[in-house]
């Protein structure tokens, strides 16, 4: 039940809960309670909106930054990561396996702003040894959503 509920609201967090209850074949109250419990347990961490900013007049630049760091004794990477993710410009921050240690996804208004963040703030953190910045040119798909218009129903009339 939880799994199904999550997969429904993951796709559409604004869906009418009455409707969700019908789809899942349970009471609306059960749905409300489940959601509340999952919010408290930290399973549901927020209800966001998918926006294709490219279609607005707002300028946004996104960059993906590979960060190498020297891990600290006893605390591993967590402390450095925390110093990085506290910045509001950072939209995602992951510890990675492979060639680098931390991946930072950054949102800025302009290229200059992003560049400034990397040179002034990120690279100056003590344990950061190097960074590599990649700007995102175009988003094709984000959070499982393809950034295109909805497909038309092209099914033909057929018999039987």
């Amino acid at each position, binding site marked *: 039940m939880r799994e199904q509920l999550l997969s*429904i609201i993951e796709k559409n967090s604004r869906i009418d809960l009455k409707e969700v209850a*019908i*789809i*899942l074949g349970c009471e609306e109250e059960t749905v409300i309670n489940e959601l509340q419990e999952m919010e408290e347990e930290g399973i549901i961490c927020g209800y966001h909106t998918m926006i294709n900013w490219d279609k607005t007049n707002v300028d946004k630049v996104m960059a993906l930054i590979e960060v190498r760091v020297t891990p600290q004794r006893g605390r591993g990477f967590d402390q450095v990561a925390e110093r990085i993710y506290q910045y509001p410009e950072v939209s995602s921050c992951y510890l990675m396996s492979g060639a680098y240690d931390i991946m930072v996804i950054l949102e800025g208004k302009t290229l200059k702003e992003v560049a400034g963040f990397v040179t002034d703030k990120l690279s100056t953190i003590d344990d950061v040894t190097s960074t590599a910045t990649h700007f995102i040119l175009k988003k094709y798909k984000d959070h499982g959503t393809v950034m295109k218009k909805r497909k038309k129903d092209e*099914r033909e*009339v057929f*018999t*039987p």
Partner: protein
Amino acid sequence: MRNPCSQRIVDIAPSGIRKFFDVVSEMKDAVSLGVGEPDFDTPWHIRDEGIYSLDRGRTFYTSNAGLKELKVEISNYLNRHYGLEYDPIHEIVVTVGGSEAIDIALRAMLDPGDEVIIPQPSYVSYVPCTILANGTPVIVELKEENEFRLTKQELLDAITPKTKILIMPFPNNPTGAIMEKEDLEEIAKICVEKDIFVLSDEIYSALTYKGKHVSIASMPGMKERTVLINGFSKSHAMTGWRLGYACAPREILEQMLKIHQFAIMCAPTTSQYAGVEAMKNGDSDIEHMRQEYNGRRRFLMHRFHQMGLDCFEPYGAFYVFPSIKKFGMTSEEFATRLLESQKVAVVPGTAFGACGEGFLRISYAYSLEDLKIALDRMEKFIKEIS
């Protein structure tokens, strides 16, 4: 000039769904609840495998009965899901959709005068295919009070010394009815006793909403007298690939294979390679789509209940079959007026047999958003007429 056409073919009536939907396709802003195929695209990993097979230049025929690898995977799939055991070499033929399998099975088994018991409402092809195979259709009219299941007594009443085949169309198009294990056990017993063969069309077997589908071929004494038909269209949303299969005892399959090799050669090669991927790695897609359909099914039932449309709860396929008897109209009148007044297209139950009178087939192979629009309009129509 002489009449160029065979009188036998001329006498077969064209499908009743057609004329209705020719009107719909001309109508602007009409919404349809009539389509009998999934609204999902074929899962990408399956499509990708089809593209890959083209990339590699696999544009040859396959052996007549189908790619060996595919038959092995079909055998594994049937074993994994329904506990069936079929020898991929001698007991499986890959066909151009389940519809070809129906045709060649009937042609391989029937002699003139043999009777075929066909429960209705059901898929529109069984009767014409029986006639084309020189058989005589014997219709059993299923009843709403039995949730459109075939009962023991109904079957017994239809059997004559000439009865050779019973067609078992479950999960059912258009009613959405299923037959559960206990129901099938009774039918199987009669078939064994009366020495009747079964053509079990299980094309919707992946779409059941009340426990897992049970195949009549898995009942004691039934495998040797059953032709099992299934395919990829409904389970894996692969209608346009035209890929199905039949499993049968070797003796029957050899005869089916003769018709298949002379009339068809083999199923499309690209589709067969895609089919291998579908059988091997498609189980999670099936489950995902099944859950999606199930949500829509519950939603439809709920809305019908709200708007005062009577409907037994169906547990299979992607159709519901509401009754419109209380509005004092025939199915065709209701469907026509609904289309004219609210521009919603549904299929009159009579398209699937005379006993479909008083019912409509409504498909939920549509997104929830589309269903909502159509249901709102239906609700308006029902207020109008009641």
